[in-house]
């Protein structure tokens, strides 16, 4: 039998010991790989084969490849691709909010006794494999597909349109379709947390339903809106597969496509890694914001 002193010391080390294997795993296979991107981006390249030669010591890091990529951004195609990515993500995430807010609002406030049913229904797309959802749209948008059938039948289009031939609107709508479910969940959680009596109070004090929404519900759901937007923007910034499936043209290429092309060619790993670092710089702000707001919410929940 263990004495109290022994039990105490055991307790002190028990919990870190529990966490250790998982943390070690994340250090080795999340943090170290992350460092590997930097080591490749700041490393050298084989002069003949162009393969990457990572440099692991930060004191010897060489910004040469960075300069090359920066040059490509300011004078070449890469700058256009970065701007296009920002534009697509901005439009797609705003559209997602416009679609997602009414749905989240309805389920949180007006679904009544059927709330469970609605929750199951809005959670379902979340768990339908992403590639399955994109496959569905590739089928629908083919030149002989249902979308063209319907649009030509009702007379919107005179003849079938090549939706999959490099159209920005197809890609943006594909992104919206792909990521809206992820926005609805945090938004629903935020709207559902709002104390109904605050809205009732506004109504009792003479506010119209619309003013009560504008001055009470909307400000109280701000956290949810921002969290939801960040949650969809992060994967959109790194997306390349939606784009590749819905458009086979370089006209709609995004940063993710560049990374994919460089990394999966035998001689572009250094550039690929460098663009990945730049992408991380862009989304880093969003990630920091999200982590801080999650930490704050957890603290409040525990208190």
């Amino acid at each position, binding site marked *: 039998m263990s004495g109290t002193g022994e*039990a105490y010391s*055991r307790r002190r080390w*028990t*919990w*870190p010991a*529990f*966490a*250790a294997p*998982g943390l070690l*795993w*994340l250090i080795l*296979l*999340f943090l170290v*790989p*992350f460092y*590997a991107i930097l*080591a*490749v981006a700041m490393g050298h390249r084989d002069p003949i084969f162009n393969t*990457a030669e*990572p440099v692991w010591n930060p004191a010897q890091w060489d910004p040469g490849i960075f300069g090359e990529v920066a040059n490509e951004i300011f004078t070449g195609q890469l700058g256009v691709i970065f701007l296009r990515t920002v534009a697509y993500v901005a439009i797609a995430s705003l559209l997602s909010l416009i*679609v997602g807010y*009414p*749905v989240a609002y*309805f389920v949180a406030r007006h679904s009544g006794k059927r*709330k*469970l049913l609605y*929750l*199951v*229904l*809005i*959670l*379902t797309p979340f768990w*339908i*494999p*992403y*590639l*399955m959802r*994109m496959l569905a*749209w590739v*089928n629908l948008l083919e030149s*002989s597909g*249902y979308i063209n059938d319907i649009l030509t039948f009702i007379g919107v289009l005179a003849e079938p349109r090549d939706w999959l031939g490099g159209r920005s609107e197809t890609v943006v709508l594909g992104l919206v379709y792909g990521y809206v479910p992820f926005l609805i*969940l945090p938004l629903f959680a935020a709207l*559902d947390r709002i104390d109904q009596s605050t809205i009732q109070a506004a109504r009792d004090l003479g506010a119209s339903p619309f003013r009560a929404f504008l001055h009470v519900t909307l400000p109280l759901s701000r956290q949810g809106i921002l*969290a939801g937007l960040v949650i969809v923007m*992060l*994967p959109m910034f*790194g997306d*390349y*597969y939606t784009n590749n499936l819905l458009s086979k043209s370089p006209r709609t290429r995004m940063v993710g496509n560049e*990374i*994919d092309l460089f*990394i999966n060619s035998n001689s572009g790993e250094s550039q*690929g890694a460098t663009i*990945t670092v730049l992408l991380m710089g862009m*989304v880093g702000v969003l990630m920091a914001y999200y*982590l801080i707001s*999650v930490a704050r*919410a957890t603290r409040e929940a*525990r208190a």
Partner: protein
Amino acid sequence: MSVDVSRPPESISAPTAWQRLRAWIANPWGRPRFLTVFTWLYITWCIIPVLIAVQFGFNEGRSRTAWQGFSFRWYFDDPDLSVWNDPSLRQALYQSLKLAVGTMLVATPLGVALAIGLARWRGRAAKPANFLMLFPLITPEIVMGVSLFLVFVYLFQVVQLGTTAQVLGHITFTISYVVIVVRGRLFAIGPDYEEAAMDLGASPTQALRLVLLPMLAPAIWASLAIAFALSIDDFVISYFLRAEASTETIPTRLYSGLRLAPSPALNALATILLAFSMLAVTFAGLFLRRSRRREGRKGSAVEELARLDI
């Protein structure tokens, strides 16, 4: 003879369907009505395309856009092109299941232990450890894919690209989800039960084994199911870490197939993937519901799943 007094007089009963229809025509954009219609349109938009894709997996003919009658041709019957008879499709199914089972079996224990550790640990390093756990949840997958690819090619060269690398990658992003699920339960259970057990003479490990783990059991089963679903749905990590053709998973096979040679067999394969994913998530939901009941709490498990921040 008695009068049924529980029945309200006709004049104040709920409006009839006809009255409701007239009110709707008079003001179709009344707030909840507009929202109801909007929500149903959204749900239809989300689900109908997928159902159509499922349907074409059962098409008699080769078309993915015109219905030619029902058959199992693309599942079993076609001697060359069906999921069962095309080696590349069958191999993808096999690879996906292999990765999902492997991921589930390793990520769940690691994640459960990490969740218990992080929830109880009050040391100085606990906070950065918590942040490290959250990071994989929000890092864009392409960044994780590239980083794992580079680390296996240039640093941990013992690990070859292919199945081993894919399993390791899947486990890495799954651990954090397991932690989130289990941590929610741990906060709800609180430290009281364990402390009571220790007051009654149990050692900390006994308290953990005999009190906490049984209470966590449903959440652990749910985590297994969620880990399975996350792994089988994953595309990006499998894509960056695949090697030869036999390491293609269902999602990566769908991706290359859609780009090069679409066929209803891909719809059939995607439908199988969908079935596995839905089955796993249903299990997770049922286990979470059981775990809530055990704590005697109100609300539904689905609500919980929806609240699961990230």
